[in-house]
């Protein structure tokens, strides 16, 4: 069934986020040939703007609604909502996709509420059956799954990063670019500043590789070899609740039922015993490696590869061998 789609796209420092390209690819697939629009907002320079639009075109966007304003330097619900509403009106979309990122999960519910619609959050699979879409999403942080469908109004949903394929269509279209004029007076929330704590810039939920530490890491300093391993693998560092509660690292890194649910290609658990609430947050990773001194640790039951040993010996050895490999 043909359905006009609208994709909410995000960029970070001028680069489109891969989760947004995943959403666009899914939109192209679900549209069955109907028009696919993309909305994107920010404070742009002309070069970045045209690069971004060219990239969105190459992934199958028919039309790009763009908002460019100094007030859009940082995300805020009020300003983004106005952009979203305008693009939705202009595109006449019957379905809207967001990535389930910090921005997507903040904006999508407000937008759905504004138009009196439902929202299916954090989908990991979308199937089409007799013209109807079935959305699969994890509940209890992945301890169970549910399938949902829309019974009234437009289909609005967010998709979990790293779960949908990015597909580049064989033929490159030239998308229509629509510069929107949006009114930004009397905004209720103002972002005063953004303090970068996440130095390496790899977001946990989008990372392809995660090196996570638990109580076995023993101290904040103990995370250093994990950071180095994450660095040589181009990944991000995460932690268990035990490590966060012990003060070894920031709660922003916590993976589990409280904290973030992640699905990287490779998850390396170092000194993590594997409490149920932690396993819930990472069991859907494609490949899991566990390094732990205790051969009885429950983490080994979900691991594809287990190493019983001292992480402070194993991790530096891994770093050394990977470096040798890349040097070859």
């Amino acid at each position, binding site marked *: 069934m043909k359905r006009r789609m609208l994709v909410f796209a995000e960029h970070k420092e001028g680069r489109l986020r891969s989760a947004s390209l995943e959403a666009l690819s899914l939109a192209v697939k679900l549209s069955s040939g109907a028009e696919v629009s993309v909305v994107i907002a920010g404070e742009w320079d002309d070069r970045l703007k045209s690069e971004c639009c060219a990239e969105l075109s190459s992934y199958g966007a028919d039309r790009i609604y763009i908002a460019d304003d100094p007030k859009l330097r940082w995300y805020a619900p009020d300003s983004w909502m106005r952009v979203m509403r305008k693009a939705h009106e202009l595109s006449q979309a019957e379905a809207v996709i967001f990535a389930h990122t910090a921005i997507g999960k903040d904006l999508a519910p407000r937008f759905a509420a504004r138009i009196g619609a439902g929202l299916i959050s954090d989908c990991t699979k979308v199937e089409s059956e007799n013209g109807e879409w079935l959305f699969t999403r994890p509940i209890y942080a992945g301890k169970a799954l*549910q399938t949902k469908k829309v019974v009234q109004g437009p289909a609005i949903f967010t998709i979990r990063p790293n779960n949908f394929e990015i597909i580049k269509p064989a033929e490159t279209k030239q998308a229509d670019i629509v510069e929107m004029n949006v009114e930004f007076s009397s905004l209720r929330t103002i972002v005063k500043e953004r303090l970068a704590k996440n130095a390496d810039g790899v977001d946990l939920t989008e990372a392809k590789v995660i090196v996570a530490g638990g109580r076995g890491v023993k101290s904040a300093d103990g995370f250093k070899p994990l950071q180095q391993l994450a660095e040589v693998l181009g990944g991000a560092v995460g932690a268990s609740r035990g490590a966060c509660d012990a003060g070894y690292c920031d709660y922003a890194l916590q993976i589990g039922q409280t904290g973030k649910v992640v699905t990287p290609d490779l998850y390396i658990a170092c000194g993590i015993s594997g409490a149920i609430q932690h396993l819930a947050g990472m069991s859907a990773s494609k490949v899991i490696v566990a390094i732990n001194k205790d051969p009885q640790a429950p983490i080994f039951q979900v691991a594809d590869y287990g190493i019983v040993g001292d992480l402070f010996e194993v991790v530096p050895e891994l770093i050394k061998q990977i470096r040798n490999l890349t040097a070859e």
Partner: protein
Amino acid sequence: MEIIVCVKQTFDSEEKIVMKDGSIAEDDVKYVMNPYDEYAVEEAIRQKEQHGGNVTVITVGPDRTESVLRTALAMGADQAVRIWDEQLADADEYVLSQVLAAAIRRNHFDLILAGYMAIDSGAGQGGPRLAEELDIAHAAAAVKLSIQGRQAVVERDAEGDVEVIEAALPLLVTAQQGLNEPRYPSLPGIMKAKRKPIERLNCSDLGIKPDQLANRTVVVEQMLPPARKAGQMLSGTVAEMAGELISKLKSEDKVI
């Protein structure tokens, strides 16, 4: 300051999920206050201690959910509201936000606090939807909240970075881990909570219209995820194990 806190009862995070006749079994499950909502309740009490006022906790759920209201009252909230109706048993996020908004709109409020998400559904729609229904601003995933007069400054977690946001009251704030350290209810607190009022309401008390009770989305099926196969334990010296692991990740799994 009039403060409202939205709370939800959830399974304890250490509970395993067991399926029974196609749905999730609730027998013998340990229920707790959603962990993110504990931060919200704690923050409400701290704001009240600082600025004075009144804290009302509100939940939607059957009888058993009153235990979370009692916990919040024992922590220091002043009064509680529980909304329930058989019609709400399968309510989606749209319907729940209609009901909560109707209950909150009845009285004046300055600040609404809620958890960033619930650890059962994991959707995180409640806060932003409610703010939109009430036509007020919101700030999500707060790790710090300071209020002076009618002005709030919120530090929020933005994918690991911290964003500093300013907004005027009335405001809805959702609580992220790290916002505070929730207190345990004291024994006198627990005794006092028994005498604090819980108001019980249904949909007709709130004048909810039929369209507001019409789910926009429904659950078709619930199931357990495919079990992970037990993997392979590597053996040998540290160097040998590391070598074998890297070669497998590289050539078999192709993930590095």
